[in-house]
C-alpha cells in the first residue's frame, strides 16, 4: 500500500495556494502550546545571554570587581560597597550569582550550541559519506564511531586540556569529539534508508557528482532526525560541559559556566548556603528543558506520521 497516494489531498495541494515547507512547519510547530512556551523561554534565555553585559550588575569575570569579603552573601543582601544588591546572593568569591548566571548562560549556551553545530557538521558529513559509499568507507567510519563511543569523555577532555590548555574553545573541541559520533550514527541510519530511494538512483543516472548527491540530495532528506538529535545533543553538551566542570576539567575557573557555578556551590549545598548552587542549577534546568521542549515538538512535527 502506498500510504501517501491520495490524489485527493494532492490535488488539493496542487490547486490551493502553494504552501512552503517552512510555513507548513511553522503551522505544525505552533500546534503545541508547550513547545511554543519552550521556544519563548529559549529565546528569552538566549537574549539574556547575548545582552548579559548590559543586564548584569557586575562583571563576574573581572576579578577586580569581586570581593572575597562579600563571599557567600545571602540573596537580597547589599554589597559592602553599596553599589549593588545581590539578588540571588554571592558565591564564595563574592561573585554576584545573578550576574554569574547571566554570563554563565553565555558560556553554557555558546559552548552547547557551537559544539553541537560543529559536531553535527562533522558527524553528519561522515555519517552520510559512510552510508553513501558503504563498504570500506562505511566500515572505517563506523569503527571510528565505535572507538569514540568506548572512550570516556573525561579522558578525551583531559587530553585536550593537556594538548591545548584550558579554555572555552578547548572545551568545545572536547565536546565535539565527544558528540560527533551520535550525529554520524543518526545520519548514517537515515541515509541508509534514503540512499536506496529512487531519487538517489535518478541522480546517479543523471551523473550528478557524489558530493552533490550527498549534500544536496541526501542531507536535506536526513535533516529531520538530525535536527531532533541536535536539540538533544545541545542539551547534552551543556550538561556534559557542566559535568566536566564539576570534575575540574571544564572551563576556566574565573569564567564560570552554569555548570562550574553549580560545581563551585556544591560544597555549600549541605551547609545551607544553597543559593550558590541552586539558582545556577535552576537556570541550567530551564535552558535544557526549553531546548528539549523544542526538540520534542520538532520530533513530532518532522515525523511524517505525526502530522495531524
Amino acid at each position: 500500500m502506498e500510504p501517501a497516494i491520495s490524489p485527493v489531498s494532492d490535488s488539493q495541494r496542487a490547486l490551493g495556494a502553494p504552501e512552503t515547507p517552512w510555513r507548513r512547519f511553522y503551522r505544525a510547530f505552533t500546534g503545541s502550546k508547550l513547545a511554543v512556551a519552550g521556544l519563548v523561554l529559549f529565546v528569552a534565555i538566549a537574549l539574556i545571554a547575548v545582552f548579559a553585559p548590559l543586564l548584569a550588575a557586575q562583571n563576574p569575570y573581572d576579578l577586580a570587581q569581586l570581593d572575597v569579603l562579600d563571599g557567600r552573601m545571602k540573596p537580597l543582601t547589599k554589597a559592602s560597597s553599596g553599589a549593588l544588591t545581590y539578588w540571588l546572593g554571592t558565591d564564595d568569591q563574592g561573585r554576584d550569582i545573578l550576574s554569574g548566571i547571566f554570563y554563565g548562560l553565555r558560556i553554557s549556551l555558546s559552548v552547547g550550541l557551537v559544539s553541537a553545530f560543529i559536531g553535527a557538521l562533522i558527524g553528519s558529513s561522515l555519517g552520510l559519506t559512510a552510508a553513501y559509499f558503504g563498504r570500506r568507507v562505511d566500515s572505517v567510519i563506523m569503527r571510528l564511531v565505535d572507538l569514540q563511543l568506548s572512550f570516556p569523555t573525561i579522558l578525551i577532555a583531559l587530553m585536550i586540556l593537556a594538548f591545548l590548555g584550558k579554555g572555552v574553545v578547548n572545551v568545545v573541541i572536547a565536546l565535539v569529539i565527544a558528540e560527533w559520533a551520535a550525529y554520524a550514527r543518526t545520519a548514517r541510519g537515515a541515509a541508509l534508508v534514503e540512499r536506496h530511494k529512487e531519487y538517489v538512483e535518478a541522480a546517479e543516472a543523471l551523473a550528478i557528482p557524489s558530493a552533490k548527491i550527498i549534500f544536496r540530495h541526501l542531507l536535506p532528506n536526513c535533516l529531520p532526525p538530525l535536527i531532533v538529535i541536535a536539540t538533544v545533543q545541545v542539551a547534552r553538551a551543556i550538561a556534559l560541559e557542566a559535568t566536566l566542570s564539576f570534575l575540574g576539567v571544564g572551563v576556566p575557573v574565573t569564567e564560570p559556566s552554569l555548570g562550574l557555578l553549580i560545581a563551585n556551590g556544591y560544597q555549600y549545598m549541605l551547609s545551607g548556603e544553597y543559593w550558590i548552587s541552586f539558582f545556577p542549577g535552576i537556570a541550567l534546568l530551564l535552558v535544557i528543558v526549553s531546548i528539549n521542549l523544542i526538540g520534542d515538538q520538532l520530533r513530532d512535527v518532522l515525523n511524517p506520521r505525526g502530522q495531524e
Partner: protein
Amino acid sequence: APAGSLNIGLGGAVTTIDPHFFNATPNQVIAHCLFDRLTERSPSGRLEPGLALSWKAVTPTVWEMKLRPNVKWSDGKPFTADDVLFTINRARNVPNSPGGFSGFLRDIAKAERVDDLTLRLVTPAPAPNLPAQLAFVAIVSRHAGEGASTDDYNAGRKTIGTGPYKLVKYVPGDRVELERNDAWWGPKQPWQTVTFRLIPNPAARVSALLAGGVDVIDDVPPADLPNLSKNKAVHVASIPGMRLIFLALNFKAKTGSKWATDTDGKPLAKNPMLDRRVRLALSESINRTAIADRLMQKTAVATGQWLPPGAYSYANSVKVPPYDVGEAKKLLAEAGFPQGFKLTLQTPNDRYPNDAGVAQAVAQMWSRIGVQTTVDARPWNVYQRERDDYMAALWGWGSPTLEAGYLLSNVLETPDKSKGHGVFNFGNYSNPQLDSLTDKAMSTLDDGTREKLLVEAVEMASRDVAMIPLLQMSNFWATRVGYVMTPRMDERTLPINVAPEAAK
C-alpha cells in the same frame, strides 16, 4: 554502631596495606594501626618513644637506639633488632612501589645490630632529623615479611604487626576492617573493632556522619564547619597543621613570558619577580586574614612562615605580612610598574583544600593593586607539566619533621640534583647565604643551636620574600557525640586518638 566498635569515614583513598608501598596519609593511617614505628609523634607533634625506647647520637654520624623489650608480633613471635634491619632494607626496595619511603631512610648509610634490643644507625653526615624521619617507617616482622609481596600484605597473609590493631579485611576502594590486638604493649584500646570507610565525597562523608553511618570523619569540608560546630550531636576537633599553602615565584626567567606581560599583553622585558619590591608588593597586597576567615572559613590561618606558632624553629620575629594596599602600590611604582602588569597565577584545582578558590581570591587582590591577574587552574596531573615555567604558582608543602629545615632545604635551597637540594624549588630561588645557613643548620646535632640557625634562616627567607606564604592549614575532624577525638598535627585519623566520651 555496637559498643566497642568504631567507624571512621576517611576522605582519602587507602591504596594498599603494605606499609612500605606508597606514602600517602590514608595508607599511613592504616599502617599506624597495624604496625609500630621506632619513634612516634604525639598528637601535638612531640617526638616520643615507639619501638625504640631511647636514642642518642654516640658520634655525630652514629645514632644508637635501644629497643622496647617484650614486644610481640601479632602471631606471638618476639620483636628484635633483626626486624628493624629487615624493615630498613625492605622499605627501600619494595617491588613496583611508586616510592615514598626511601626518603625517610636516605640518611642511613648502614644499620647495625648490636644486640637483640640495640641498634646502631650510621649516617654519612650529621643527621639531626633521623629520629623524626623514622616516625614514618612502620616496622614489619622479618619472619613474615621475608619474600612477602604487596599483594600478600593486601590479602592479609603477611600482615603481621606489633600495632594496636590487626587486619580483618581490606576491600579496595571501600573499607578496611580491623580488630583489636590485645597483646599490644601500649594502653588498652577501647575499640574491639575499627572500620575505616572510604568516602571521598565530602558531602557524602558529612551526611554519613550525620546519619550515624560513621562515628568519625576526617577532612571536614570547610563549608560544613559552621553548621557542624552548631550541631549538638557532633563534636568538631581541630589543630593547626603542618601544611603550608604558599605562592612560588619565578626567579629563573630573565624576561617576562606569556604569563607575565605588560598591560598590552606583550611579554615584559624584565622578569618582575626578580625585584624584591614587586615580591613584597605582591605579598602585602594579599589580605590573608580575609582569605583564611571568609573563604577558608577559619580552616586555615594567615601566616608569614611555615610552621604553626610554638613549633620548634618557629620564628617569633616573623609576622604575618601586613595587608597594605597603599604600600603595595607604592612599592610597585618604585619598581617601575606604576601601571601594574598582567600576570597569570597557576593553581591546581584538585590538590589542596579550595586551591583554585584561594588563587582566585589572591588574583582579586593583586588586580586591585594593578597586577591584572588571570587564574589558570588545572588538575594536578596536568599542573605538573609546566611547573618549572610558571611565573606565579600556588603550591602546598607539609613539614612532616615539624621543623623549618625541611622546607628550607627542599623548597628554598638552590636546586642541586646531586645533593638532593631544592627538589621542590621550581621557581629556582637561589640565595647562597640562605643555602649555607640551611646546610649549617641541617648538620648541627644540638637542638638549641640548630633552632637558632633555623630561625635565622626563616627570617632571612622572609626578608627576601623568597616565596609568599599564605595560609597554614588546620586539620579538622568531626565526631558524633559519644566519641572524643584528640586532633593530630600530622593529619592522621587514628583510632588510638579516639575515646568514648565520658558520660556527663
